[in-house]
Structure formats: structure tokens, C-alpha cells
């Protein structure tokens, strides 16, 4: 236990130099936690948003439906199987019918997915209630991105054309009853929402649906023939992959930051060994083995990480807590630039694993860069060291 004791004594005795190194390293340390926390926050918010607005407690897709292949939509409709219908009737699931179509806003042609949903549903949190409005035209709900892309506004009338179950084309006028503001792009861009009953009638698909969204927390009903279940682990995989790729990109930045801090420590260690060679010789004369001197210098270097954690805690905890509480503003509509379902204000999430992992990473890197120059001591002859020479 003598090495840690001496190392702490030496580091504290070195005064400002120790704390300066710790301050530099703490910047990297806090920055890593902050940046990683921000991505954790991205992930958490995206998952929450997608669950609330689209995924619910998981989805049952009609056999053959592939959201990434529009050609599958022609046949992707069927009457929900009995167990699903029972859930729908009990208010624990909501069916959605998806049909391909075209909008003609201002004479332009805009391909869209026409989605039918029950205006009274409560499983997904977006304003489907507005679709219950009655009028001459069919009420339609679109998102703000769709409105911007098509130039439509609330109260506008637009023609929609679609092909029904028998392959016949038809067209009707829709009235945009509301523009919803949502951060979930996947229920907004290129989509128009109609009352489910109306769309079923338009497409000649009575009682049919493409997907059935289970309510959050609804008990599982096991396998339903013809309607494979897509759990949240499957549905959220894409989001998690995106976060992972973004995190890897960010890692390069903060590893560079850590590298710079490590370089400062490496430099300090090299200087320290050079400046303290007489001290090393004195220690050897008093009976400290070379191995112990190496251990002492390595431990001293590694202590930089401990001191950085202390310094980082002093200024970092209030800062990180502030961002966790007040959020970090990306700027108006900047969330869309990321291509992710995130709001304009991000709330970082710091997990124990993140803090612990970062601490271990910083500690390991610091120890390695402290050990490397300390190896020089192994070649140092006590008589040379005492005279201030390096052998």
C-alpha cells in the first residue's frame, strides 16, 4: 500500500501542476459523458416518440406487408383475425389500413400513402379526433412536413386518386381539417390520414386493415395466423442502429479530445521523469526497487484520472444536471436535419453504465500513457540518477 500512499503524497505535493492536468483531463471526461448522454437522450426520446405515435405496444402486420416495399401494398390488406378483432373491440388495439394514392395539390402530383385510422382511437397519441368532422369533403389530416412539401394548409381542399381492391382508379376531394405538428417524421412525410371507415369504403376493403397497433402495455396474445407480430425490439431496431452509428461518429471526436488530454499527461510524465531523476536515484538509494519506482510514477499518472473525476464532478455535475433539466437547444427545426424523430430541445440521459464506462476508459488510457514513459526508469542506473543523468 506504500505506492498509492506515496503517489497521493507526491501528486498533492506537486500542487497547481496536478490540478491543471486534472482540469484538462476533466474537460475530456465531462465532454464524453455529455456527448454520449446527448445521444442516449436522442435514443430515449426517439423511442418514446415512435412508441407513442406509431408503434404502440407493437404491431401485427398482415402477411406480405413490407413497409419498405410499396409494391406489397396492393395485396397487404385483410380482415383482422379474430383474436385481433377482439382486441380492437376491447379498445386494446387499433387497425390501420394503408393504400397507395396520389394527391394533386395546386396541379402538382404528389405520391402519398393514404392511411385510414379510427378517429376515436386512443392507442396512438396524435390528433385523429379531427377526422370525425363531418362535411361534404372527406376530412384529412396531414403533418407539418407534408403540408410544407405539398403547399397545403388547414381548410384547403385537394384531390386524391387511389386504386381500389379490384384495381379500379377513383378520385375524391379531401378537406385538410388540421395540420399536426409531430416530431415523428414517419407519420408525417408523404402521408395523408383519413377516417378508417371512409378509406375502407373508398378502397372497397370492408373491415380490412394492413396493420393492427397494440395498445401500450396490452397483454401479449401469442401468434396470430396471417398477422405476424412485430415487437418493439424489431420496430425500434432501426432507431437503435441510427443512434449507434451517430454515437460511433461522435466517439471519434471525443476520443480525439481524450487523445489530446492523454498527450498532455504523457508529456507531463516524460518531463516529470526527467526533472525528478535525482529524486528517483535518491529513492533507489533508500531501497526502492526499480519496479516500485515504475509503479509509483505509473500510479501518479493514473491518479490524474482520479483527480480529473473529482474536478470534473465539481464543475461537470452542475453543468450536466442543468442540461438534463433544461435541455440542450438544437435550434428551431434542427431536429429534422438529423433525420431523426427528435424535438428541437434535447434532454441528455446519463446512465450509471455511461459514467462508469467513461471513468474506466479515462482511467485505462491515463494509466497506459503514464506507464509508457515510466518504463525508462527500468534502464536507469542509481548512480547515474543520483547525478541527474539518464542512462
Amino acid at each position, binding site marked *: 500500500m506504500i505506492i498509492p500512499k506515496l503517489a497521493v*503524497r507526491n501528486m498533492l*505535493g*506537486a500542487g497547481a501542476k496536478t490540478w491543471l492536468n486534472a482540469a484538462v483531463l476533466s474537460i475530456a471526461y465531462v465532454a464524453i459523458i455529455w456527448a454520449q448522454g446527448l445521444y442516449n437522450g436522442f435514443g430515449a426520446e426517439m423511442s418514446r416518440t415512435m412508441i407513442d405515435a406509431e408503434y404502440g405496444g407493437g404491431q401485427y402486420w398482415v402477411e406480405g406487408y413490407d413497409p419498405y416495399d410499396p409494391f406489397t401494398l396492393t395485396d397487404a390488406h385483410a380482415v383482422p383475425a379474430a383474436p385481433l378483432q377482439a382486441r380492437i373491440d376491447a379498445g386494446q388495439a387499433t387497425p390501420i389500413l394503408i393504400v397507395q394514392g396520389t394527391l394533386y395539390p395546386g396541379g402538382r402530383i404528389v405520391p402519398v400513402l393514404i392511411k385510414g385510422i379510427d378517429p376515436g382511437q386512443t392507442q396512438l397519441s396524435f390528433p385523429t379526433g379531427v377526422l370525425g368532422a363531418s362535411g361534404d369533403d372527406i376530412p384529412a389530416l396531414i403533418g407539418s412536413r407534408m403540408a410544407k412539401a405539398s403547399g397545403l394548409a388547414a381548410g384547403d381542399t385537394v384531390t386524391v386518386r387511389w386504386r381500389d381492391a379490384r384495381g379500379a382508379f377513383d378520385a375524391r376531394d379531401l378537406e385538410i381539417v388540421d395540420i399536426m405538428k409531430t416530431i415523428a417524421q414517419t407519420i408525417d412525410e408523404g402521408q395523408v390520414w383519413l377516417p378508417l371507415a371512409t378509406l375502407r369504403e373508398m378502397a372497397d376493403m370492408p373491415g380490412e386493415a394492413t396493420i393492427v397497433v397494440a395498445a401500450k402495455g396490452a397483454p401479449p396474445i401469442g401468434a396470430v395466423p396471417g398477422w405476424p407480430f412485430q415487437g418493439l425490439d424489431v420496430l425500434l431496431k432501426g432507431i437503435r442502429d441510427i443512434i449507434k452509428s451517430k454515437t460511433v461518429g461522435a466517439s471519434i471526436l471525443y476520443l480525439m479530445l481524450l487523445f489530446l488530454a492523454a498527450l498532455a499527461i504523457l508529456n507531463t510524465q516524460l518531463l516529470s521523469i526527467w526533472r525528478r531523476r535525482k529524486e528517483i536515484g535518491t*529513492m533507489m*538509494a*533508500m*531501497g*526502492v526497487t526499480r519496479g516500485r519506482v515504475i509503479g509509483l510514477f505509473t500510479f501518479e499518472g493514473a491518479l490524474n484520472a482520479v483527480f480529473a473525476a473529482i474536478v470534473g464532478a465539481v464543475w461537470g455535475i452542475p453543468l450536466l444536471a442543468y442540461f438534463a433539466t433544461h435541455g440542450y437547444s438544437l435550434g428551431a427545426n434542427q431536429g429534422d436535419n438529423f433525420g431523426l424523430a427528435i424535438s428541437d430541445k434535447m434532454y441528455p440521459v446519463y446512465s450509471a453504465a455511461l459514467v462508469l464506462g467513461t471513468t474506466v476508459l479515462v482511467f485505462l488510457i491515463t494509466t497506459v500513457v503514464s506507464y509508457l514513459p515510466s518504463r525508462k526508469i527500468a534502464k536507469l542506473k*542509481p548512480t547515474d540518477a543520483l547525478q541527474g543523468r539518464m542512462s
Partner: protein
Amino acid sequence: MENGTIIRTKDLVKIYPMGGQSITALLDVNLTFGRGEFAGLVGPSGSGKTTFLNIVGSLDAPTRGSAEVLGQKVEALPHKKAAELRNRHIGFIFQTFNLLPVYTVYENVEFPLLLLGMPAAARRKAVMDALDWVHLSDRVKSRPNQLSGGQSQRVAIARAVVKKPELVLADEPTANLDAENSHHILHTMEDINRELRTTFLFSTHDDKVIAHLRRKITLVDGRVAGDEPGAAGKEGR
């Protein structure tokens, strides 16, 4: 090794390679030192005094011959064993004091005892006793940069003797001190030598030190040119 003999060298040779040439620092040195001696190696610079102390202190190894210290052959000692010998049995005093700069006076003196793994209470008593010997018990919290040269060397003496070693090797201990401090320090070392029967071996060319020696060994060009009682020995001090 006979009873009471601390150091014995036999045909000790040390040659340093220097570029393409070699310099002979010690040549066939045969010396024996007993317990409780207060002896010194004297001679001009480059005569081999420090080299002899380094070998006896197991900081260096001879090129040829043998140096037996406290029953252990220095030339055969692996690094760890040599470190253990120094740690347990040998104290060093250097010309430039070599105090550890970030430690207080107390911590500097405590250092060898920490290496020995001495319990805290015994350690504290030993440190305070050693500081009493050198009259510095009131400076325990001072750092080396707050001490005069004389005080620094007294701390170095306390550090060398705190573990009560059999042998203290002092390399030009008064070279950086004025006359008054030199005498003060030499008296302190004499007191410790008498009280603890610690063997003191000096390397010096300072007349003030020579005057205190009970045995004087003269080295010239790495050879023993004389081995006689010192001034203090003749006076029967």
C-alpha cells in the same frame, strides 16, 4: 565475515568504459571496516572515493574483485536484494542533501520507515527521535525549500539514521555547508556513531571532516595510498 566486520573488499576493481577508452576508478582495493568505525576516504577529485561508496552501498557493481557488505557479496546481488540491503542496513547522506522536494521534513525522515513497513506508532516515535538527534523536531512541517543548507543536511542525516542502520555512507556531506554548519553536523554524526554504534564511512576532501575522522584512508588514482588513524583517532576521541 568475522564478528564485528561490516565491510570487506578484496582486490576491488572498477573500470568505466568511456567512449572507446576506459577509466580505472578503483584498482585492487583491499579494505576492511568494523562496526562502529568513523572512517573516511580522502583524496583529490577522481581518486575513486565516490565509486568506492557506491559499490559498498550496492548502488554499483565492481568490474572485478569482491565487496562484501554485512555478509553479502555486492557483485552477486540481484537488483531486488541490493535494494533490500540498502533499505534495511544502509543509510546515505549526499553532498546535495537529496531531500524529496514535495515532502515535509517529517515525511522525508519517515520515508525509509514506510519502505520497511513499520507500524504507524513506532514510525512516528522513530521519526521524532531522529529529528531530536538533529535538533529539528520543531520543523516537522517545513518543506525542503524552507530550510537552510545546514538544516537540510541535518534532515538528510535524520533520514539516514532513522532506521538505525549498521552503516551510513556520507558522500561529501559538508561540501555545500559553511564551517559552523559543518562542525554542527559532524558533531551530530559523532554523537549518533557513539550512541548507536553506527559505522560511518565518509568520502571527503574537506579538512573539517578529516579533523573528525578516527580513521583516514587516502585514495590516489583508485589505489589505497594510505590507511592510518585520523586526527580524532590519534587524539583518542
